C-alpha cells in the first residue's frame, strides 16, 4: 500500500533506522515462531510431531478429523464452538451497548466526579481473579448459573466492561468537541449525535475495543473451567480435552489450538480493515 512506505531518511539516522527495522523483524519472527510451529505440527502425524523436529513431512488433515469428530459423552467440537460463539457475541454486544453511553458520559459531557467514576471502573480489575472465584462460584450455585452460558456471559460482561469504558472514553475524547456541538445546534438529539457523529468518527476505536473484548472473552479459561466444567463449556476447555494421559497428543492438540485461533484471527482481520477505513476517513482539519 502506498501509505505504508517508510519515509526516506538520510545520513546517520538511516543506519539507526535500518537496525531498528531489522530488530523489529527478528523480534516479530521470534514471537511468531511458536505459532508457526503449532500450525506445522497440526498437519503432522503424532509420530512426526513427537520425534526430532523436522520441517519437511507428509502433511495430513487427519488430526483435524480426529479433533472434530465427536466422541460419545465428551465435549464435542461443535458444542464448544457454539457455546463460545454465543457467549462471546452476546457478552461483547452487551459490553458495547453499556460502554458506549458510559464513555459518552465520561468523555463528551463529563458527569461530576468523572475521575472517581473512571477509577472505580478500573479498580474492579485490581483483585486477582482467583481471589474472587469462591464467592463467584457460591453465587453461581445459589443462582443456578453454574454450567450455563448465562453465567459466563454475565461474568465476561463484568470483566470486559471497565476496559471497554476506558478505551472508548479515550477514543471519544479525540472527537472534536465542535462536531458534537454542531450536531447539537443542527438539531440532533442524543441519539442523533451518537449515530451520526460520534459512532462513525469513533468507529476505528469502537472496532479496536470490540476486538479486544472478543479476544479476552474467547480466550478466557479460568472462570470457564471452574464454573462450566459440565455444560456450557467453551473452546479453551475443549482444547484441553485433547490432552490425554495415554499416548501422544501433540499434533492433535496443535490442530485443536489452530481451530481455536481461527475465529479470533478472523475477527482481528475484519476489525483491522474497519480500523484502517476509519483512520483514512481523516480528521476535520
Amino acid at each position: 500500500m502506498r501509505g505504508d512506505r517508510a519515509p526516506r531518511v538520510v545520513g546517520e539516522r538511516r543506519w539507526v533506522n535500518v537496525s531498528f527495522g531489522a530488530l523489529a523483524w527478528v523480534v516479530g519472527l521470534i514471537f511468531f515462531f511458536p505459532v508457526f510451529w503449532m500450525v506445522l505440527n497440526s498437519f503432522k502425524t503424532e509420530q512426526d510431531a513427537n520425534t526430532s523436529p523436522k520441517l519437511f513431512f507428509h502433511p495430513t488433515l487427519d488430526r483435524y478429523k480426529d479433533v472434530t469428530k465427536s466422541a460419545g459423552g465428551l465435549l464435542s467440537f461443535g458444542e464448544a464452538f457454539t457455546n463460545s460463539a454465543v457467549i462471546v457475541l452476546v457478552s461483547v454486544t452487551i459490553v458495547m451497548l453499556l460502554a458506549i453511553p458510559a464513555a459518552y458520559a465520561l468523555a463528551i459531557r463529563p458527569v461530576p466526579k468523572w475521575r472517581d467514576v473512571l477509577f472505580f471502573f478500573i479498580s474492579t480489575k485490581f483483585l486477582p481473579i482467583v481471589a474472587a472465584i469462591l464467592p463467584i462460584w457460591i453465587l453461581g450455585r445459589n443462582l443456578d448459573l453454574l454450567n450455563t452460558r448465562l453465567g459466563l456471559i454475565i461474568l465476561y460482561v463484568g470483566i470486559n466492561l471497565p476496559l471497554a469504558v476506558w478505551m472508548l472514553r479515550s477514543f471519544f475524547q479525540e472527537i472534536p468537541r465542535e462536531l458534537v456541538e454542531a450536531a447539537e445546534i443542527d438539531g440532533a438529539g442524543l441519539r442523533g449525535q451518537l449515530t451520526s457523529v460520534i459512532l462513525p468518527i469513533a468507529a476505528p476505536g469502537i472496532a479496536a475495543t470490540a476486538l479486544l473484548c472478543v479476544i479476552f472473552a474467547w480466550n478466557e479459561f479460568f472462570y470457564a473451567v471452574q464454573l462450566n466444567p459440565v455444560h456450557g463449556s467453551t473452546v479453551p476447555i475443549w482444547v484441553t480435552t485433547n490432552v490425554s494421559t495415554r499416548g501422544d497428543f501433540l499434533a492433535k492438540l496443535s490442530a485443536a489450538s489452530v481451530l481455536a485461533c481461527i475465529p479470533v484471527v478472523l475477527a482481528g482481520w475484519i476489525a483491522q480493515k474497519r480500523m484502517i477505513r476509519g483512520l483514512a476517513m481523516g480528521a476535520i482539519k
Partner: protein
Amino acid sequence: MSAVKYEHATRTYEGSDVPAVDDLNLDVGDGELIVLVGPSGSGKTTALRMLAGLEPLDAGAVHIGEREVTNVRPRDRDIAMVFQNYALYPQLSVAENMAFALKQHGVPKEQRLARVRETARILDLEPYLERKPRHLSGGQRQRVAMGRAIVREPAVYLMDEPLSNLDAKLRVQTRTEVVELQTRLGVTMVYVTHDQVEAMTMGDRVAVLKDGALQQVGAPGTLYHEPSNLFVAGFIGSPAMNLVPLGDGRPVRIGGAEVVFDGQAAASVSNGSADITVGFRPEAVQVVADGPLRAEIRTVEDLGPEVFVHVTVDHRGDSVSLVSKMAPPFSGQLGESVGLELVGTTHVFGGDGSRIASTRGTLR
C-alpha cells in the same frame, strides 16, 4: 423577528473566581451584523456560546426575538453556528453536511435537496456536493460551513472566528462575501473575532470586550473616533493609537513640549489634578523638520499609499515609541532627529482610563 438581547448575562467557569462573561447587556437589532471583538480571554466566544446554548448562564437571561431562551436547548433556539474549525461531519458528503440539520428537523427529502442545491449555487459549491470534506481546500470547507448555516434559514447566525483558518488574501475576500451575504439575506448575525480589522470592516456595530466586561458598543467609526476608554482606544485601529501617560503635573507635557488643548477641554484638563493619558491616532501626528517635540526615527514602513514612521521621544527620562502615518513620499532617514506636530484630534483619558475629552491639541 430575530433580535438578540443579553440581559445581565453572566458566566463563571467551574474552578474560576473571575466570570468569563460579566453582567453583559447587549441589544442586537433584527437584521444587524454585530461583531464581538476582544483579545483572547475577553469572553467573546463564551458570550457567543451562551447565545448558542452551549454554555449555561449563571445569572441573567438571553432572548432571541420575543422569546427568552436562557434555558432552551441549542437545537430549539433556531440558530446556526459556524465554527472556527468548521466542524464539518467528516463521514458525510458536502450535500449531506448541508442537509444534516434539515434532516434532523424532519424536512422532506425533495425540499432538502432543493434547498441544498440553491445554497450550493449561492456559494459556488455545486461541483463539490458529492465530495467529502477532506477532499476540499480550506476555503471550500469554510464555504460548506457557511452553507450548512445558510441552508437552515435560522433566526440568528452565530460565527465563531470563521475566517481565522484562511490565508490572508482569502480572508479579506471571504470577509466581503460574508457581509454581502448577510446583507442580501437580511439576517441577524453575531460574529466573533479577535481581529479588530475584521471587526471594523464587517460590523454594523462592534462590541469590544475585555476580561468578560463589555467596554463599548458602537459603529466602527464611533469606536475609532470616540473610544470610551483607554482599552478601546488602544485595541481599535492599526497601528494602535499613540498613548502617552502624562501623570498629574500641570501644564501637561510630552517630553519637553507642552500640550495645549482647544476649547472646553482645556479648562477641564488644566484645572484637574488627576493622572491623565493623552492619545492620538498615527494620522494625528506628523513628522516635521522642526517642532517643539524632538524625536528620533526608528523604522519606516512604506506601504505604498501610506508610510508609517516609528519614532521615539524622550519623555520624562523614558524612551516612548510613537507612530506617525505620513503621506508618501517620505524622505526621513533612520536615526535622524526630527520634530513632531499634532494635527488632529487628541483624546484625554482620566486616571480610571475613561475618556474625558477629545479635542484638537497642539504642541508648544
